């Protein structure tokens, strides 16, 4: 069978051409003259973004200074060596270079739960093929009981201070931590919005409490406090068994189960290190603000409808009586 002219086994093709190609590859890495004289001339070229019909329609308006090269364009880290594809991992991260790959809810990273809206209905525990999710309880503030402004407290809060119950005090510097804190790079549990304490005894407007973190007992005025409760929430996730399939996220009826973008902080030495507790899998509501707000609005409407029905039933009962 005839060989391609470049493939005929002669001295030129077998020895001279490969050696010249290798020499040029080596010379290309010399800092100044390399990229100028020996560059292969096709890495990181501007890719033709629009298809032909669109180009004829709107003309080839390039997108200003944003150069999109279909090849992954990286490594400004080592100037003299042009590496169009490799990401120098600890120094460069993929989500900085290609943000469209890490749209917040489109990436199957570590599991994250917005505890505020989780009602521990165990749908995710049943949905998981590998049985990684395990129930666990956590002291938390019932979000509906926290009216932003006193006047619109529609009397929805159903939990009051009770002896043996819990109360929470808002820690004030939470707002700015919440926006700057990024779980991917901090690799430790997210900051808490409240400090929780166990109520020992109630007397009028003051109560003696024992703070759960520090363990100190203190008597505290109930004015600025918010009632909290011990709730069963799904939390202990065995990441050693998890295969990041995302079925739990889809099965959550209350839209409070998300897959975060974190892919590298989850290693451990023993299997038990891979057990993640409620704090480690917390996702701050601010990350999925719209989903959380939609969910809260839905629940608030359901609660209000329930109240009206109860009121209507009560009024009907009182009419008959």
């Amino acid at each position: 069978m005839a060989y391609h002219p470049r493939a005929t086994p002669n001295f030129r093709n077998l020895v001279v051409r490969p050696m010249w190609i290798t020499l040029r590859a080596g010379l290309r890495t010399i800092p100044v003259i390399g990229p100028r004289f020996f560059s292969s001339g096709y890495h990181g070229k501007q890719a033709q973004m629009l298809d032909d019909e669109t180009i004829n329609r709107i003309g080839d308006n390039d997108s200003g200074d944003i150069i999109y090269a279909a090849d992954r364009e990286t490594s400004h880290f080592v100037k003299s060596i042009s590496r169009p594809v490799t990401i120098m991992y600890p120094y460069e991260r993929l989500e900085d270079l290609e943000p469209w790959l890490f749209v917040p809810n489109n990436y199957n990273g570590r599991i994250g739960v917005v505890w505020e809206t989780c009602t521990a209905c165990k749908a995710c525990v049943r949905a998981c093929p590998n049985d990684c999710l395990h129930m666990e309880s956590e002291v938390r503030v019932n979000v509906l009981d926290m009216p932003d402004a006193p006047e619109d407290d529609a009397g929805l809060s159903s939990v009051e201070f009770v002896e043996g119950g819990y109360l929470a005090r808002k820690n004030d510097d939470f707002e700015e931590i919440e926006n700057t804190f990024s779980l991917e790079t901090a690799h430790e549990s997210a900051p808490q919005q409240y400090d929780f304490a166990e109520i020992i005894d109630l007397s009028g407007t003051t109560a003696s409490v024992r703070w759960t973190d520090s363990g100190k007992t203190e008597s505290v005025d109930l004015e600025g406090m918010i009632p909290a409760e011990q709730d069963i929430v799904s939390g202990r996730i065995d990441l050693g068994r998890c295969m990041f399939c995302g079925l739990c996220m889809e099965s959550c009826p209350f839209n409070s189960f998300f897959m975060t973008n974190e892919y590298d902080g989850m290693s451990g030495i023993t299997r038990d290190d891979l057990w993640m507790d409620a704090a480690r899998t917390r996702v701050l509501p601010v990350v999925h603000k719209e989903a959380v707000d939609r969910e809260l609005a839905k629940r608030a409407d359901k609660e209000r409808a329930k109240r009206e029905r109860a009121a209507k039933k009560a009024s009907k009962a009182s009419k008959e009586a």
Partner: protein
Amino acid sequence: MAADDWFDVRGAVAWVTEQTMDKTIGMTRFWEQKYWLSEFSAEFAMAGIIFVVTMLAVLGPVWMERKLIARLMDHRGSTIAIRSLWTGEGNIRVEWWKDLPFGIGVPIGWINGFLWNNFGNESSNPKVTQVGNRSYAGWWWALPGMINNFADFTKFAIKEHMPPRDADQVTYEVAPFIIISTTLLVFAFIPYGPSLYAANPDLSLVYMMAIFGIAPLGVFFAGWASNNKYTLIGGMRSAAQLTAYEIPLLVTVLGIAVLSGTLNIIEIAEFQMNNTLGSVWNIFLMPLGAALFLITMIAEVERTPFDMPEAEAELVEGWWTEYGGMRWGLLFASEYLRALAACLLFSLFFLGGWEFPFEDSLIALPLVGGIFGALFQVVPHSAWLLMKAWLVFGFFIWVRASLHRVRTDQILEFGWRYLLPLSVIQLGLSIWLRLGVYDGGPWPLVVPALITVVAVVLFVVLVLDEDEEALAEQRRPYHVSEINKASPGARINLED
């Protein structure tokens, strides 16, 4: 003349041993013994010096290979700098000196603390400091990556060696020592400079080629003794290849001896440097010989494209597989020592030994002559020899990076059917040159010029035979023409 410069190691060693013998045994009643004793201890010291020089010289090629191959593959290779001794990696500093007994480590701790505080923390690259990798490419003049060689050596020395269960114990243990000892013996007669050599017998060339040829025996022993079918096949292939390339090598070296009229390596080098004798480098007199020598040496040292026995997809590591720990370290060191020996021999035989190119004409230049004269006085001539050897090793790396690995039967066929006749032709040429053209004094310059021009023309003709019109029409070997394919392709024009 290049021969005599200040770096006269042998003279100094002889003087020192003589003085010590005079002052010690010369004073006693056995004073007659001081003569042979000083000569013996001088030779003994020179052997030690040559061993140290060789070990330092072999560090060059090992480091060069690692860095150049990395550079060809667009990364920097190992960048561990000397600074990593005291900086540690990623904010973690191992205080190893605390484990030393009897508090020996304490002063080392002080020095380390001082270096850590003054020269350890910052790096010019912001990303490097962010990640805390301080040993990343320290100062360039500290040869980043050189420390890896010492790290590798200690790893080989420490690693446990597990001989295969029912290997043939005796031959298994003997094989690596045959290889490493013959390789080191080769350096006994390689002169690093006019007065830097361990021994200088008259027939040093014949001895050199004999000791160089013993390695295939060790290789075959290693292949056979490790009781592993793959290593047996690898050992056989390697022995066949080495013997196949031994004969053209010997015939080419014979051509050199004939041209220089001696069988002593130092005299060959002198012949090329001495203005009264030959004063023309042999590479210009026998370019074909130089090419043959390089090819056979690459095969002799088992480097790509001739390293079939050692690394084939289905042979895994060839005859090296069953060795580990220090035995593998010795084999690894012997591979690079043999490569260094090959480069030194090439520069001695063809590139005029330890003479700087055009040394005499540079000194004779009108204006700058003086500067060159001073330079050649100050720098010891062994440095030029080492420079040439490392350049030849650079060529070896370039060959390794670009050529395909050739199959065993193709290697043997190429060895027997092409190299052997060519080397015999080369021998005939050198005999004709020596007897017919040479008349005692320096070569008439027209002879090397003519030979070099003919060689270059031949090479260019060999390279440029390109079939232009076939290339233009991109004739492909396969015959999948677009069999009346539906024409979705037409919608995407591939040519742009």
